[in-house]
């Protein structure tokens, strides 16, 4: 499989891992009674993210952030692949994105400032570069 598509598949699997990293502690902290409920705000006393511990809330935000990044990255990978614009540069960008998004998770969970922002920036710049490479 082409490198960009491998990286895209791994990035999607990373999102499944991020879901587990967020959902397991959230269920342990709140109990399935709350997480399986319709999560009506008056009954819970707020949003789920506001009721969990500091670290779980960070993993929650990291998970949500990757959705946005993953949509853009999916477009970048598929446009590069379908437009036959794949090169060593776009492959490097794709793996750079994947590595940065893996490191983003502990950086968020453990509050590594400013490294979380640096890793986010690397993933963002890699996606931008792939989109620009697809157009030129």
């Amino acid at each position, binding site marked *: 499989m082409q490198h960009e598509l491998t990286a895209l598949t791994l990035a999607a699997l990373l999102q499944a891992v991020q879901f587990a990293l967020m959902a397991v502690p959230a269920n342990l902290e709140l109990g399935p009674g709350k997480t399986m409920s319709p999560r009506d705000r008056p009954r819970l006393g707020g949003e789920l993210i506001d009721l969990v511990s500091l670290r779980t809330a960070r993993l929650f935000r990291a998970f949500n952030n990757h959705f946005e990044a993953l949509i*853009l990255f*999916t*477009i970048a990978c*598929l*446009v590069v692949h*379908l*437009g036959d614009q794949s090169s060593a540069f776009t492959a490097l960008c794709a793996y750079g994105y994947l590595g940065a998004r893996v490191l983003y998770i502990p950086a968020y969970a453990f509050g590594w400032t*400013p490294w979380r922002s640096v890793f986010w920036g690397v993933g963002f710049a890699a*996606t931008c570069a792939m989109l620009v490479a697809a*157009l030129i």
Partner: protein
Amino acid sequence: MTELSILASYGLLVIVTLLLQATGSMQQLGIGYLLSSRDDSHTITGMTARLNRALDNSVVAMALFAPAILLLVVTDSTTVQTLLLAKAFLIARAVYLPAYAFGIIGLRSLAWTVGFVSTALLYFLAL
């Protein structure tokens, strides 16, 4: 312009939206808060808050638009009509951003509708 280059261009438009929103947030909340783990929530106001809502809306639109284009390209069903609709989507979303940022009532909703209807029609043509 092909459907694929329109999709790549829309990705770049979303990136520009994000950069504008981030610039505004930096001014309102300070770089220190943005670099932190953001454990306490802060609210942004004015044009930056509008750009934030525009960004959220653009990401949802992107999640719907991208599969339609990719389906059409992968199944080789692109036509003059699909290219026209893709162009209409891109132009509508390019209008949507300043219409939201500057609070032009009516125009923002019109641009959103053109983009939404274009996306829906692309799915019909993909079938």
